[in-house]
């Protein structure tokens, strides 16, 4: 555009500190400090490693949920999907173990990944092609996955073959360079998630769809495709969490992953991702998962509040986080 007007140079202002973005990390630091003051056992290396490892499952699934939520959808089925994937994996490994031995674990993991991706795809297609509200669609699949694991286990449990326990054990209990393997996997998942979300075209489109689906549509972005892929990413994350989870208890039961969807959504939301879409914070999500696990741990360690109230305290936290978010903004 040529015009007679003079150009006003854009002044590159220094980035302000964004308190809204820092919130989850400050909260995490506060919880840790409180833990140190309240209980001497809290800050020990063993306990910390234990807490961080236990938080890995929620953190990994929540990374996937960050994609779904930032595209303005919701997945309530993650907890029962996790149980379902766990059940399928164990059944597969048990079947193959007599013939191929410990290699069955690798095959089981691949099957788990495929099943997770398929479950995610199913959720995605119901929401996007079937045009059903994500809340209702995934409420439906949540019931389906939960019923399937209950049916597969006949209401009891599906134990992993004894011969696989030892070779599979390190995936949860082992470490590389002192870092517990589930923690390392969480880091990798979060790094890849952050790369996809912040550094790829898909991530940009995901934000655009969550921020304003009309603008995305008018810009030639397929809202259907973007949202379906988000659900598939969610399914993959559930499968990865399942792979880490199996050696911990060595079995799948009808209560595996029960109510995890609430913890996952809580972690995402207290991490600073907007439920209305368009703003996603992967590292905030990871911090959110850590906060939840630390508070539960602190309540178990100290005697001030009954550990039966863990869920209540987590409920209070999500409400406080939402209020804080509004006031900081």
């Amino acid at each position: 555009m040529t015009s007679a007007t003079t150009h006003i140079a854009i002044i590159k202002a220094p980035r302000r500190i964004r308190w809204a973005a820092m919130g989850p990390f400050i909260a995490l630091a506060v919880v840790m400090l409180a833990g140190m003051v309240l209980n001497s056992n809290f800050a020990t290396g063993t306990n910390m490693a234990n807490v961080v490892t236990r938080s890995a499952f929620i953190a990994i699934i929540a990374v996937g949920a960050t994609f779904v939520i930032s595209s303005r959808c919701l997945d309530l089925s993650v907890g029962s999907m996790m149980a379902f994937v766990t059940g399928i994996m164990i059944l597969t490994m048990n079947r193959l173990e007599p013939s191929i031995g410990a290699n069955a674990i690798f095959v089981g993991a691949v099957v788990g990944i495929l099943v997770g991706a398929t479950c995610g795809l199913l959720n995605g297609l119901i929401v996007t092609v079937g045009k059903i509200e994500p809340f209702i669609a995934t409420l439906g699949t949540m019931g389906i996955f939960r019923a399937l694991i209950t049916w597969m286990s006949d209401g009891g449990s599906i134990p992993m073959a004894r011969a696989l326990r030892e070779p599979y054990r390190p995936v949860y209990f082992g470490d590389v360079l002192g870092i517990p393997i589930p923690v390392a996997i969480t880091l990798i998942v979060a790094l890849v998630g952050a790369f996809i979300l912040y550094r790829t075209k898909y991530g940009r489109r995901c934000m655009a769809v969550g921020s304003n689906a009309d603008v995305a549509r008018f810009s030639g972005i397929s809202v259907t495709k973007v949202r379906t892929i988000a659900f598939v990413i969610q399914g993959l994350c559930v499968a990865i969490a399942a792979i880490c989870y199996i050696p911990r208890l060595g079995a799948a039961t009808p209560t595996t992953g029960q109510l995890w969807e609430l913890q996952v959504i809580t972690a995402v939301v207290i991490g600073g991702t907007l439920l209305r879409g368009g703003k996603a914070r992967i590292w905030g999500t990871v911090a959110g998962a850590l906060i939840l696990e630390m508070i539960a741990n602190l309540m178990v360690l100290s005697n001030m509040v009954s550990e039966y109230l863990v869920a209540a305290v987590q409920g209070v936290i999500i409400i406080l986080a939402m209020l804080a978010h509004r006031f900081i903004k």
Partner: protein
Amino acid sequence: MNAVGALPLSATIALAVEARTAAALAAEGLTKAYGPVTVLSDVTLDIRPGEVHAVIGENGAGKSTLMKLLAGYVSPTAGHLLMRGQPIAFPDAAAAEAAGVVLVHQEILLAPDLTVAENLFLGRELSRGILIDDRTMDQRTAEVLASIGAHCHPRDHVGDLPLAQRQLVQIGRALLQPRKVVIFDEPTAVLANDEVAALLEVVRGLRAQGVAVLYISHRLDEVEALANRVTVLRDGKMIGTWPAADLSQRRMAELMVGRQLDVLYPPKRSQPSGTPLLAVEQLSVDHGAVQASLTVRRGEVLGIGGMIGSGRTELFEGLMGLRPAEATRVELAGTAVEHRSVKDWRELGLVYLTEDRKGKGLLLDEPLAPNLTLQALDRIHPRLALNRDKEAAALDKAVRDYDIRARSVHLNAGQLSGGNQQKLLLAKVMMTDPCVVIIDEPTRGIDIGNKSQIYDFIDHLVRSNKACIVISSELPELVGLADRVLVMRGGRIAAELTGDQITEHNVVYAATSGNAYETDQQDHITINKVGDQNDKRDDAYRDH
């Protein structure tokens, strides 16, 4: 612009004072300002029992504001209202209704899942003791429906009714209690021709009952058929009030426009337009356009005129694949186009810039760079990963080329002024280097400096052998920019104007008048009428 046949001043005042004491509702010096922006200034008019008083004006002339002031939805900044000569103020719409003044909204504000009777009595249900008195309400509803010629049953669900019946239900709701003044806000905007005729009968019936009717419309044929007196608004100012018998439709159009072109516009291009670039045959869009055909040539600015709601935006959203649409044939640069989606069009070199800058154009909560590159991500980033440097470079270039002014590049798009948002949006669609650019309302809500820049941009675009389609509600813009203008009415292309035919009043005339152009022999301007689909509505009116 002077009033036609104005009386001497003293006589005018005497008449006006007398009229106002008899008026069911009168306004004196009514003014409304929002902050520094005056949207309506110094309007004085009266509505008498047993008359239809029409208010006409272009989009943005202040019609809606006037009617909201009269019905108590907003309070005036200055001036006051009178009923039967007594000053009165309406703190809210409920107070106006209590005084017998009611506004029938243009949009249909009914709960689709409730029945007709439930809607009519919503918020004022009748009861016997603690029980809802359905029987009485159904009875009253049936009476009201019969009085306005509605053919639905009180127990019908509103969502199942055709649009015209819903409109009548809405009118029924307004007329549930006896009214002194009924204000209609473009009641026929959503109606088909035969439905319009029925609605006009309802209005005539009210007038016969001695109700004072204020009728707001931009369909001049209706106004001519219905009104006793006509008040013209333009740019928030009152131009005057005339007996309807003294005004032809053409004169009304002139009074509505009454503006002069200024020097905002680049000089028209002298060389003739080149080969056809985009050709569309018989494009029909659901709830929008009907069998619209158009061609735009290289080096040409094609203007699309017509009132809001005439199907302009729907036509082009349909062309872009953003709405369900069908066409017999679409060609770009001589090649038939099979798949129409924003993405496919982008590859072929056609882009559409939406009129809804904030709702469909920009991500207001995102910074400038992601907004700029959203439509061209594949072009800027051939690989999977985003290249931040290229993105920054693209933003730098766009800021210079399009003169986008922002305090900081870290601002979100929503923090820019309207004009800068529009230039950012323009830069965004131009990222893919298109050969045909469709701009819907290029300068809505932006200041004059930015307007002139956008006009210059359009001029440069077509001078570089590309083509531009400009959809605009601003008449001077169409006249100042376009080499050719298509005027839409009721989803169809009603007229094509070229060369000297492109005048503001011809556009208004074609956009509003159902009546035949042929009868207007005194005017030397001929308008090439496209198709004869409009004759149906004309007949509907001639019947009355």
